[in-house]
């Protein structure tokens, strides 16, 4: 997409900041204090920064509850009131940890979002049990936002298998009537055809979606591959048209947009020396008014504090800034990154490969600018050593990419539709090329 196209299609986008300001009645006025958005359908006043509970700090198999308590306390203090979890996250322990931390506060002071994550056994009994267990885990009598977890992959047939044939969708609608679910929606990963199908359901009145959770960030805005996933711009516009509130996931692509390659960082810094790369990514999304909240999986105090800063003095982007972000997205696409968000859905690999670990190490080295490419490169030996040593540190030998046997079992689990074995093979070949270029580290 060239600049002209961007400008053309950006008409809707350019309206966005204006609307954002126009709907100031629905948003808290800019200034100090957390930015809020009002859900036009029910008046919920939701913090624009939502807490994603998929990345709590872990110690081996266990979540470090003290840290979760500490971070939730800080988040509540700062006015973050939307907490998104799932029975599948963090080996199934995320809901309980979030529940423990949140139940110290009045129930009406925060919103809980959780999901029906029936990826494995999707029979009615198993799905029902999952639903009921979530109440116990989170120590609540109702869910504010309840999602059909990650639909779109596999299209309508999989959706019907998971939610229609087993009667779960009808059941959940009844639960909504009973008040145990306040808003029923879905989270989406998939292609346009699948998304259109879900919109059609809405349009025809089969199920009115109260909200939809989509992946959106300045790279995915117009640079999704279009085959396995859809441009966020398309999703946003379709939902905006129907006035469906939107929850945003992966605003930083699993952290990749928080630490971007040096040339992009330089662009950001030359505009605003004190702003982080992440703040640019958040501001881009927050500039679109239909966005209800932006989920960020903050796993330690530092990003939490930094995000609170970003959202406490929130500035929507100008048209010029949105255009600038598109340029940055183009620059990002030039890097051979694996679009892994470290969601861990592919794990555990039956052959012991540390898939997200390998990808995040690789991405880190690419974006850090410490990426050895050819022996002619300046400092090649140093960069090569950095890659190989840090690779061995990050991933034990027997869990490295060259041990992947391409059984393909991980592929259907990936919400980003990454061709995992192919990417692992790419990295294995890269490592092999690094190793074989010298006999010493």
């Amino acid at each position, binding site marked *: 997409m060239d600049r002209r196209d961007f400008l053309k299609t950006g008409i809707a986008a350019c309206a966005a900041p204006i609307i954002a300001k126009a709907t100031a009645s629905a948003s808290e006025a800019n200034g100090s204090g957390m930015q809020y958005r009002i859900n036009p359908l029910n008046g919920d006043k939701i913090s624009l920064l939502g807490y994603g509970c998929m990345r709590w700090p872990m110690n081996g198999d266990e979540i470090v509850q003290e840290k979760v308590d500490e971070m939730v306390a800080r988040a509540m203090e700062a006015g973050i009131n939307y907490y998104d979890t799932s029975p599948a996250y963090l080996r199934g322990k995320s809901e309980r940890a979030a529940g423990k931390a949140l139940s110290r506060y009045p129930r009406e002071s925060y919103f809980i979002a959780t999901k029906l994550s029936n990826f494995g056994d999707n029979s009615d009994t198993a799905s029902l049990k999952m639903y009921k267990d979530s109440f116990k885990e989170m120590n609540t009598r109702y869910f504010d936002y309840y999602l059909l977890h990650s639909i779109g992959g596999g299209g309508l047939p999989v959706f019907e298998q998971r939610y229609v044939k087993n009667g779960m969708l009808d059941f959940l609608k009844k639960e909504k009537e009973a008040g145990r679910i306040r808003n029923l929606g879905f989270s989406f990963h998939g292609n346009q055809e699948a998304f259109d199908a879900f919109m059609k359901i809405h349009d025809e009145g089969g199920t009115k979606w109260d909200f939809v959770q989509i992946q959106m960030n300045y790279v995915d805005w117009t640079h999704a591959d279009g085959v396995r996933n859809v441009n966020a711009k398309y999703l946003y516009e379709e939902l905006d048209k129907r006035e469906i509130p939107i929850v945003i996931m992966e605003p930083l692509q699993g952290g990749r947009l928080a630490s971007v390659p040096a040339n992009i960082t330089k662009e950001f810094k030359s505009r605003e020396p004190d702003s982080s790369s992440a703040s640019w990514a958040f501001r881009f999304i927050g500039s679109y008014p239909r966005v209800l909240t932006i989920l960020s999986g903050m796993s330690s105090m530092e990003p939490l504090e930094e995000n609170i800063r970003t959202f406490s003095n929130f500035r929507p982007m100008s048209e010029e800034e949105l255009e600038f972000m598109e340029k940055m997205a183009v620059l990002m696409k030039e890097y051979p990154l694996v679009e892994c968000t470290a969601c861990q859905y592919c794990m555990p690999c039956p052959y012991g490969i540390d898939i997200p670990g390998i990808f995040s190490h690789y991405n880190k080295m690419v974006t850090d600018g410490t990426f050895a490419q050819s022996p002619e490169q300046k400092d090649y030996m140093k960069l090569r050593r*950095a890659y190989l*040593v840090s690779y*061995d540190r990050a991933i034990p*030998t027997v869990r490295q990419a060259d041990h992947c*046997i*391409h059984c*393909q079992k991980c592929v259907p689990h990936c919400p980003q539709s990454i061709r995992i074995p192919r990417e692992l093979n790419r990295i294995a070949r890269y490592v092999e090329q690094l190793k*074989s270029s010298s006999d*010493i580290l």
Partner: protein
Amino acid sequence: MLKKIRIVLAVLLWLGITALLLDFTGVLHGWLGWMAKIQFLPAVLALNLGIILGLVILTLVGGRLYCSIICPLGVFQDGVAHLFHKRPYRFKKELKWLRYGVLGLFILAIILGINSLVALLAPYSAWGRIVQNLFQPVYLWFNNIFAAMAERAGNYAFYNKEIWLRSLPTFIIAVVTLIVIVVMACRGGRDYCNTVCPVGTTLGLISRFAMFRPVIDTEKCKNCRKCARKCKASCLDAVNHSIDYSRCVNCFNCIDSCEFDALNYQFAWGKKKEAEAGSKADKGRRAFLTGTAIAIGSAAAKAQEKKVDGGLAAVLDKKVPKRETAITPPGSNGHKNMYSHCTGCQLCVAQCPNNVLRPSTDLEHLMQPESSYERGWCRPECTRCSQVCPTGAIRPFSKEEKSTIKIGTATIRRDLCIAENGESCGNCVRRCPSGAIQMVKDEASDIFIPSVDKERCIGCGACEFLCPTRPISAIFVEGLSEHRNV
């Protein structure tokens, strides 16, 4: 002064060679590799005539300087004796039967190809074994602590290295050798060098005629016998004012200790103090010449003799597949050359960056290295073992040559292969650097199974290491007793 020079040189060389044996990064051997190559027995086995000649001339000119400066085991004993031998030394008679008996046995062992005995007695190899088995793990442990600290600091100066026991028998031998050496050094200084060490005995045959030697000036000597009390080799007879030059290791302690300037390291060739010295010298010269001739001759004979291979591959661990023929590293040309040249110094084992080499546990080839692929594979860019080997057991080859040296052949155990269960895998095919493996359709069972092109396979072990079947890989490398080029 002479003593000081000797100590400085000895400590430098000792530190160098020990560092060479400890180093696992491969940066030192470019600088220090020569220190292993100037060791006497390795040079003899490598038929490195230049070095043999150099050492013989050195000994002929200056006496057993080799034992005091170059030999790491000798220097180590000096250090131990310095610290723990507090009583005065006294002159002892030469134990001829023991010295020459051991030397005879040693030469016989070389001729007969009983290399475990050769490796056991060779002083440099004994030191290598001690360092690799006992000191390198400690060194690695410290390195790993640094690596952990570096990791926290996001620094790449240190990296973690796995510590593992490569062979229990060799480890035990190293422990026993260390104990024996330390005990002997504590009790009698250089006793080991003048009774057991075959290299010491051989050089002693030459050093009898050294041009320069410590000489007692009887005119100046006040018979205080201080020199004898300082003589680690117990070869200085202060009563008779004579020194047994075949046992003297030229440590210069006697010269340093003499307050009356009665001892000097001086040109003494042909200066016969006593008539009998002449006849002794002749005998000695003859013995030296024959000794050298035997050593060189036997080494030469080994290089040409065809030895029938045999023996079973060692089974070190449950995970090691049973190999009919042991794999020896590229450059060894096969079993014959490896087994007849290697003195088991463990330098290649200590250096192997891929955890492939380990000492054999096979009695016949005890302590001599072999390859196995449980912890890594013989990577194409690595030629380190061939660069460090001082004995010619692993001869130098280039990176480019390596991909053409066939050291073994991958063999498939279909009963273990996961393709047999219809699982798609093909990792051996994908990872083979020689492109020697293909998936082919088995007509009988109608499934795709890997098949090895035995002509293209070089036996590097990538497939074995990366095979998902555990604990025994479904594809493993069978060694070749005689390497060849593909």
